């Protein structure tokens, strides 16, 4: 297997290149994804290689992009849409929620919308207002959509290929702070990581930490630190997919550790921490030695960037949570 050290952005770029190469139905659509290669450069070089019919600079209109992509998908294309930042998906929210998510159901399987919406999300890169949202729970609450959020370059490639091959609409969330954060070996080949399966990135017996995207790294930092300082062994679960949720892995782990924590960037109230807590409560209550801890974004708008590090859950808050939970 040929391997190469790639950033998450490079891994995504390589994947898009490969699917454009191998699947003629694939089209990329979005704002500034052509000559400009996307504002983060995820589509760099692809316009030149595949031309303007396959790598399409669209007008500045997200409902237009998502709505016309629904039509493209109905008619045999596999659109991979880039929404420039997650908050800019809102103008296309109706197309996504009232159409893409429901097409298969309302037509009893006669029509479907196999497309992927890629979009950067999350805080941490000193972005302007509304460039740092984590509103994944909107999509998780919507039956018919799948939602994926990779935490490494390797996972990004494998999950993106699965998303593109998935017969249903997939929201593919790319944490901006991971884009160029680190490199990792990524096989040259096309490989798949299944949607709906979590990944236990660190085994442990004392506490299960559940996270996805950039929060996996924060969780690992805190876990490593407390392992060294206190000898506590945390199990860290990278969900990879947040819809569907891998209940089995979560429950299995919590039954083993008896303690759990969910870490997410989204606002605490109404965020997925509640859902995951409820799943644990329903399936492993009697194993719990302490309340499931939620370390999450505060219930305030993501503030201007001089304060974003305060907003973001970080290793300090996670450590405190671990401490509180283990010593409950």
């Amino acid at each position, binding site marked *: 297997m040929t391997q190469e050290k790639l950033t998450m952005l490079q891994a995504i770029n390589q994947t898009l290149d490969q699917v454009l190469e191998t699947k003629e139905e694939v*089209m990329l659509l979005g704002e500034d994804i052509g000559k400009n290669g996307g504002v983060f450069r995820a589509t760099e070089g692809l316009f030149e290689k595949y031309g303007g*019919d396959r790598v399409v600079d*669209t*007008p500045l*209109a997200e*409902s*237009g992009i*998502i*709505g*016309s*992509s*629904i*039509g*493209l*998908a*109905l*008619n*045999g*294309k596999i659109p991979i849409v880039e929404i420039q930042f997650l908050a800019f998906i809102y*103008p296309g929210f*109706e*197309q996504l929620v*009232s*159409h893409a998510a429901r097409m*298969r*159901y*309302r*037509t*009893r*399987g*006669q*029509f*479907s919308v196999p497309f992927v919406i890629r979009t950067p999300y999350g805080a941490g890169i000193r972005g302007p207002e509304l460039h740092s949202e984590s509103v994944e729970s909107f999509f998780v609450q919507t*039956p*018919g959509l*799948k939602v994926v959020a990779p935490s490494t370059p390797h996972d990004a490639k494998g999950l993106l290929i699965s998303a593109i091959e998935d*017969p*249903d609409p997939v929201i593919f969330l790319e944490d901006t702070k991971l884009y160029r954060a680190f490199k990792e070996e990524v096989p040259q080949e096309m490989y798949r990581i299944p949607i*709906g399966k979590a990944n236990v990135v660190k085994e442990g017996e004392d506490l299960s930490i559940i996270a996805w995207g950039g929060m996996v790294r924060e969780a690992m930092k805190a876990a490593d630190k407390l392992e060294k300082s206190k000898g506590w062994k945390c199990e860290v679960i990278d969900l990879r997919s947040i819809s*569907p*949720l891998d*209940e*089995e892995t979560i429950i299995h782990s919590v039954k083993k550790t008896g303690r759990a924590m969910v870490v997410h960037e989204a606002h605490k109230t109404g965020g997925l921490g509640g859902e995951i807590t409820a799943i644990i409560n329903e399936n492993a209550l009697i194993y719990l030695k302490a309340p499931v801890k939620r370390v999450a974004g505060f219930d305030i708008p993501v503030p201007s960037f001089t304060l974003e590090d305060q907003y973001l859950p970080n290793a300090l808050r996670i450590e405190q949570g671990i401490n509180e939970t283990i010593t409950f």
Partner: protein
Amino acid sequence: MINSKEIESLHVESDELYQVLSIEGDSLINLPQNMDSHLMLEMYKKMVSCREFDEKAMKLQRQGRLGTYASFKGQEASQVGSSIALEFSDWMFPTYRDHAATHTHGQKWSTIFLYWMGHIDGSICPEGKKILPPSVPIATQLLHAVGTAWADKLKGEENVSIVYFGDGATSEGDFHEALNFSGVFQTPTVFFCQNNQFAISVPFEKQSASKTIKQRAHAYDMKGVRIDGNDIFAVYLTVKEAVDRARNGGGPTLIEAVTTRYGSHTTADDSKKYRNQEKIEKDWPTTQDPIPRLEKYLRKNHLLDKETEDEMKREIKKEIDEALSIAENYPKATTKQMFEHVYAVNTATIKKQEEEFLHLLGEER
């Protein structure tokens, strides 16, 4: 192909309605060759059939055999005339009021009954057809018709996508985005707006300061046409021209067919609250009803006799009665079916919810 020169000269640059068939049933132009008696009789038959369906549906609704129903009475010429201009494999994106169009394009009356009976199978179209379910969120379907048309263009396939929408729909952002996208990518899309002058209770004067919908086409450098939507010849010729142009790579067209919603918005609505319904009911039969208009033409030109007509009507009644019987005898949707088709392969969570619920219902029985 229609002699489009002649038609264009009549309607393109004016805000007046393009009319071909006068109220008295006379043709105002030399009809092109392809408008033969066969086609005209087909138009007539379809319109009569659609009217029969609509009146039946209204009756059934009153009897509680259908849920809320949206009547298309008065819009038969717009819907039949436009859809009859399509080819078998063209895409169609209707609203809840476009059953005359979907039926003409191949949707079964029995399925349309099922739709209004609230049955989950009411949105399926016959195998091989590309008729999407009625779009409920206003104006959203315009973009789908841009997408399907765009895909056909990219694939080099000669299909056209036609999308139906109302005057009210032109106020939504999606109307704008769809026309703009279609203009930019020159998709083979026909935007067919039935301006029935009301969006529920709101007259078009309150939807926009602009006097016509047609004039919006200019904002996208698109061809725009305004026609008498109660004149099935005008509708057919205009749509045929637009469809041919789209199929031949000439890009999209915005058509404004001015027509009348004869009744209330739906059976849950009462149009007497906001408009002079009496006057409409009084004037409409002689000035706007599209069916007698075509009938007059056919009679004047000896294309329809009493006998053929009676036979036709008997057939239609029978067809619709049969469709109703199919729908009313259709197997009830089951709880199990309710859980199907959320995803190609349902998630473990859905499966679990299904099992638990079926189990509970089992206990209950």
